[in-house]
Each structure stands twice: as C-alpha cells, then as structure tokens.
C-alpha cells in the first residue's frame, strides 16, 4: 500500500455519491476531529491498495490542538446508562443494511482488506449485535466488575471507590482485525475518555465508518463530541503532539511499533499494549468424530485468515491419531475454502506460503496442499517451534506423545488454545495457563468470545480509568484496632491512651 499527499484538491461534497458504493476505484472518506466531521476537500492523503484508493484529509497540527482541547466534562459527567443507551442506538443504526456508513463499510472493507464480502459482513453484523445494551453490560462487567463505578462512589472496605476517565487516550490501531479497532474505541469512550484513534493504513475504512456512524447518530452527543478518528503517519509531528498530551496510549502491533511509541510518551503515562500473540489448537484424544474435529479446527484457522492473534496457526495431535487427523483437517480446510474463500494474498503472501512448503519438504515433513496457495497442511515430525509462520491458512500439525512436549513450546506469546475434546479441558487448563496461555476455548470457538473473556490476560478498561477513593473517617471502624476515634487520636496526636481533658472537652 502506498500513501501520497495531494494538496488543494477540489471539494468533493460530503454526500458520498454512487462512486462510493463500489462502482469506482476511489473512495473519499471524511475523518472526525474533536467531534466534527472533516471533509477530504483540502490537503488529503491518498492510500493506495491493490485495486482501490482511499482519500482522507491530511491532519494538520491545528487538528491536533483541537483534539487535545476537546471538552471533557460533558462525557465524564454522563451516566454509563446514558452512554450504553447511546451506543445501543449507534448499534441499531449500524445494523441497518441501508445505513450510509454501514453500506460504505460493507462495500469497501472487502476491497481494502481483501477479506471476502461474506466474512466482512459477518464482522460488521457482529459489531451491531455487540452494541446491544445487555451485551455492553457484559463487556463492562467483565472489565470493571460494577459499571456503576463509572458514575458514583461505591463503598468497599473502608473507602468509597469509583473510576474516573484517564483523560485523553490515543489509540494506535492495527488493521488485521477490523473489529479490534472498533472495540478499542468502544472501551475508551464507555470509560468516558476523550478518544483519538489513529486508524490503521491496512484498513482505514472500518474505523472511520464506525466513527462517522457515531457522529450521524447524534452529532451533539457527548460521546460523539469526545471522539476523533484520523489517519496520520507514524512518527509524524502530529503524532508527537498527541502522544505528548495523552494520559494513556493504547497500542496494537508488533514489538518494534510498541517500543517506538513507548519511547515517545511522558513518563508515568500508561501504554496499554496489545500483541503480538499466537494461538494453537490441542487435540487430546480421539472423540470419535474426526469430520467435526476437522471442521472445528478449520473454523479456527480461517478466522481472519490467521492474521488475528486468536487465529489457529498450529495444532498438536496425539501421534497415534495423526493419520486420522490429517484427512479430516484437509476436508475441513477444503470445506471452508468453498464457503468462505481465503482473501487474495498478493505475490508476497503467496511467495511466503510456497517458501514455507519448500522449507517443510526440505525437513522431510509431509505437506498436503491445494493446487494454489488457498490452504496448506504441514505435518511436522514432532513438536517444533515455527519461527516464521506464513499465515494465509497454513496449518502446522505437530504429532506429540506427551503434554510436556506441548508445554515446552508454550510461553507468554500464546494467547488462545482451543481444546478438543472439550470435556477434558480441566486436565490440561492449569498446565497451559501456567505456561503462559491467556485463554482456553473449545476447538472451533477461537473467534467467538463468550461474555467474561479476558483480552491478552488483562482487563483493558481497568487501565483506561483511574481508580480513585475517598477514605472514610473513623466513624466507620472496619478493622481499626481501636474502638473510637478519640482513642486513636489520643494515641496518634498526644501519644497517650486518652485525650487530654482540654481536647476531650472540645
């Protein structure tokens, strides 16, 4: 993908016309700056993908100042109930197939990301459903326990406790999983933060369309006013301005990208890191239905074509069952290729897969593959680290004899392990999580998150707020060692067991 700048482009008008419905190879998309829609009618950036270009406004330093000056009080004083109600309306709007921004997302996200239209549609629908109020509360309760902490003082132990927003949170997003970008925006706004999102170059469309849908729902709503979503170039002066003013920074991406951001934030500013992670499957025994097992594994493989941290890249199979597993896995991958074809990877992606196949053959490993690069199964000769996974539906199958072999290759780099058969999960769960795994799920459910799931081993929303307390006076004794306030003050203030008479009289 190339990015070029253009100056003084003729105004396009916001009313995105028929060319934005897919007939054209060019999409002009507004951004959102401090709650205001910013049209691509002056200096713009052109992001060129394989077949299409997306044109967005180039951010200016003045835009950065406006983001930083966004009014914080209105959102911080709004109740979480009103916020969830607003997001539910956003979700309803987003779920409407006729919604302008949803239509643009449906049309353009497949063209920009290469994911199949069916797959993208599933993701977009999932987002709309996830914004139903009940689901929002699942989400909030998972991270914060009691969502009312966002509104009011809750009593606990000898304090009143609540959460207040960090202030301004900058989000550096990645585009491999469009949904992830949108949930990070939700987390940040639900916790009442002024939120600025660097939309990912890999997919500028998903996050911008969602942000614009929020604006369309109610442009005057405090949530809408607190939101900015723009594209800017990494390491730019614009980014420096925002990072310098941020109270927390959320970064998705590889270690070098995360480290680069860390070095540029003020000391004491929390950098909330996401990734990189990998995930694998673990078959414990023959449950008698290899066809279903193969389909389940393939379902985990095809999630974002292995580009998500929760996609299955490798699977461990008991050595005794390898011969049964391989045809089942092949059948599963072929079935999903029919139903939900893998996105085109381009020359580089295909080349990585061809090289991986040759490298596997050089090891003497068994390679089963489509005629093209649509799917590949590589059966190793035993558990071994795969230093460079080519992604794109390449499944490494490791025959193993004992769980120790699996655990030896498990570390904090592993996010999710999907297990089959599920009724044996508790025989391995402790060992897996102690070895570093964050999340254990049934095979086939890696991309289906249950209420209560924990992201990368921590609760992100807990880090998007400050936890503040009012420590109660001694009228509440709780576990205090003396019986009365007077008794304690006699000890602390006067160094005696009783208050002096003058003080006692007062």
């Amino acid at each position: 993908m190339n990015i070029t700048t253009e100056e003084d482009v003729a105004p396009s008008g916001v009313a995105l016309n028929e060319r934005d419905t897919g007939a054209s190879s060019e999409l002009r998309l507004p951004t959102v700056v401090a709650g205001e829609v910013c049209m691509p009618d002056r200096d713009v950036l052109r992001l060129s993908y394989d077949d299409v270009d997306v044109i967005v406004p180039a951010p200016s330093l003045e835009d950065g100042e406006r983001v930083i000056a966004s009014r914080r009080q209105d959102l911080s004083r709004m109740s979480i109930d009103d916020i969830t109600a607003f997001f539910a309306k956003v979700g309803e709007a987003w779920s409407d197939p006729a919604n302008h921004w949803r239509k643009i997302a449906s049309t353009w996200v497949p063209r920009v990301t290469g994911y199949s239209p069916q797959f993208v549609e599933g993701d977009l629908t999932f987002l709309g459903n996830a914004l139903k109020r009940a689901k929002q509360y699942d989400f909030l309760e998972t991270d914060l326990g009691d969502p009312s902490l966002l509104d009011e003082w809750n009593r606990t132990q000898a304090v009143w406790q609540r959460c207040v927003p960090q202030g301004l949170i900058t989000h550096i997003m990645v585009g491999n999983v469009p949904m992830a970008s949108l949930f990070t925006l939700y987390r940040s706004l639900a916790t009442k933060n002024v939120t600025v999102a660097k939309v990912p170059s890999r997919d500028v469309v998903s996050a911008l369309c969602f942000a614009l849908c929020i604006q369309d729902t109610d442009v005057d709503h405090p949530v809408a006013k607190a939101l900015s979503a723009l594209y800017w170039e990494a390491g730019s002066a614009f980014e420096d301005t925002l990072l310098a003013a941020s109270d927390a920074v959320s970064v998705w991406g590889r270690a070098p990208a995360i480290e680069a951001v860390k070095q540029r934030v003020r000391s004491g500013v929390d950098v909330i890191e996401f990734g990189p992670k990998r995930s694998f499957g673990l078959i414990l025994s023959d449950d008698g239905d290899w066809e279903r097992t193969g389909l389940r594994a393939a379902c985990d493989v095809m999630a974002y074509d292995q580009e998500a941290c929760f996609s299955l890249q490798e699977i461990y199979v008991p050595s005794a069952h390898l011969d049964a597993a391989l045809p089942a896995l092949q059948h599963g991958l072929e079935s999903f290729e029919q139903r939900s074809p893998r996105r085109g990877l381009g020359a580089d992606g295909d080349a990585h897969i061809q090289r991986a196949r040759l490298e596997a053959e050089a090891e003497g490993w068994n390679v089963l593959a489509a005629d093209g690069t649509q799917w590949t199964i590589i059966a190793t000769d035993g558990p071994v680290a795969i230093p460079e996974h080519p992604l794109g539906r390449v499944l490494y199958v490791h025959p193993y004899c004992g769980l120790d072999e699996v655990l030896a290759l498990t570390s904090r780099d592993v996010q999710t392990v999907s297990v089959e058969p599920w009724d044996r999960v508790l025989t391995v769960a402790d060992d897996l999580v102690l070895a570093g795994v964050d999340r254990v799920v049934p095979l086939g459910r890696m991309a289906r998150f249950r209420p209560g799931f924990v992201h990368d081993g921590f609760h992100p929303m807990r880090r998007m707020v400050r936890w503040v307390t009012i420590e109660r006076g001694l009228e509440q004794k709780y576990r205090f060692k003396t019986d009365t306030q007077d008794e304690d003050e006699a000890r602390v203030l006067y160094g005696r067991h009783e208050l002096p008479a003058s003080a006692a009289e007062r």
Partner: protein
Amino acid sequence: MIRSGRAPTTTRYRAAEYDSLDELIYEGADAYNTRPDHATVVRWIADAADWHLEHSNVFKHLASARGFSTEELRATGDLAKVPLVSSGVFKRRQVASGYEGKAHNTTSSGTRGSISVVVRDDRTLERFVGTVLHGVRSFHGDSALREGIVLSPGSASPNGVWFSYVMTLIALLHDASFFVENGTLQCEAIADALESLSPEIQPVLVGPPALVWGFLDYLAQQRRVIDLSDRRAFALMAGGWKKRVGEQVSRDELTERLNDWLGIPPHALRDVYNMVELNTALFECEEGRKHVPPWLVASARRPADLSIADDGEDGILAFLDPTALSYPAFILSDDFGSLRCGACGCGRGGPTLTVTRRLAGIEERGCGLSLERYGSQTRNGSL
C-alpha cells in the same frame, strides 16, 4: 587504507574432475554468444543433482516430496522439475552436501534479523571465484593497468560474511586498496588515492551503493571534483543498500553524481548480482542489463504455483546453479524479478535478469510473532 598486491590468478583449480563446466567457467571466451546447448546444461544440472541426492538430506527430502529423479530429468530435459531449496532453509539448518577438504561457513550479513549459513568447500569456492573472474573478463576485458579502489575492509570478515569476502576478490585480478577501517569509510584517503594514480592506470571503484554514495556525498560537500573521464574508470556495485535502505537513492541520482564528481559516465556504473546462497555472480553490461552466465539456469516463478513465468513477467527469482557441490544451489530466492530472452543491445546473448524488489516481510501482516521473537527456539537441523 590497506594495500594489496595482485594475487597469483594463474594458479587455477585443476582437479582430476576438471570438466566441461570448469572449462567454461575458467577459460570460456565469448561464452555469452557461444552458449552450450540445452542438453549440456541439463547434464550439468543432473550431475549436480545426482551428487546432492547422494549427499544432502535436504535435497533428498525435496526430491522425494516432488517425485523428482535425475533419470527423468535427463530423459525429458525439463529443468522446471528440479526441486528448489528455499533460501530460508539456510537460515534455519545446515544445508550441506558431501565435500572434501576444508569447508568454509559463509554467511549473509543478517540485514533482516537472521543469518543464512552456506557451507562452501574449496572446489565450490574456487568455482565462485571463477565466475567472478569470468564476469570481469567478459564485461570489462583484461587489463594489467587497473587498480581497485575498494570501499570495504581489506580482509574477509572473520565470521565469514560472504559480502565482505566477495569484495576482497578484486585483489585476485588487480592491485587493490581497501578503504574501510574500523568500520569507517576513509573518504579523504579514497580521494587522495584516486588523484595520485599514475595516468596510465584505469581505476575501478568497487563497493556497496551506500558507501559509493557516501563517498560521492563527501566529494560534493568538499566541492572536490576528481576528473577520471579520460581514464575509462568504472564503478562496480554489489550488495544493495542493506541496513541503510532508508537512505537509498535512485540509480539516476547515483549516476549523476558519479558523472559530476568523478567523471564516470552512466554506462560505466555496473551492478553485480549475487547472494550468499548463489555460487555465481551476474554482471551488468553497458546497457544496464544483468546477464545470466551460460552455466546458470535462472527463472522467475509465479508465486501462486511456482510455475515458470513468461518472458518479462515478474516472479520469485529461482536459480539452478551447478557450480556448487558442497550444498545444493538450486535456490528459490527471496527476490522478485523477471527474465528476458530478447537480444541485448550490448551484443551478448542469453537471458538477462531484472531484480525488482525483495520479498516483503510477513510481519507486515497479522499479530503473528516475528522471527526474532522466538527464532532462538528453532531446532537445529542435522545433515
């Protein structure tokens, strides 16, 4: 500056097995226009493949997976069927065929975070040197009155970095001086050396493009013009920009500065293509096209299925190089490029190769872990 006298290039390898391939490499004159026929090339590749099948487990595994046999190759002459070793294999395990005498571990420079190790025995190494000498003879002619001004250290890297070794080969042909000391390019010394050369000496500036550019930048800053235009000077570049890719300038900028500050005309700037896994150097002609030597089979492979791309069609560059015996040099590279079979304006025959770019890293997609994160856990392979 380290000064080196010319090496005794007349002591060429003369093993009992000295064969038609050696004869072509070491002594072949006008080899680009009197190319061996297809059957001869097939025989060289098949002979090498026989050797590797006997001595290399890696190649044996590949042949088995791809249903390859040298009998079939000899019968059909279909070189597309020869199994390719991904250059990535050299980063992860030892890939060696049987060899006699001393073996040298030659390595890539590790620009991309991992190092390829290629085992070369004396015969393989000498054949590589032969391909370099063949290239210099074929593209620049013989001259006793040349001096190499080499922008690299004067001795091969102790840890076997291939590029560093290749840079020292100029001393086999000509007097040469080396101008990188303690990791620093000695720009002033280069300029002084160029200016003090006897008038009859033809200077050859040799180095990676980043250092050539660095020297030209120095001349520009110093406003110091050294006019070599009446000396038939030329520049040989190799190795690419590596870790300084962020400073990369276009070839046009480079030729313009070479012309402006040294008087070296654009046609006298020549690139040499090689990589640690390849045992042959490909030289560029005055038309700026890299010629494939007659013993080497080069192709561009379509990424979707590794089929051979059409003339001029971009693909992954692959090479069947029969000159290597200590490892199978049937390589699928990580470069993209194309082959053209049409006649070249320079008058030399055979295909020419265009390198377009390196393969993009996987880390540009996905949350997958990058190589450096847990590459250390990779199992070491055995022969």
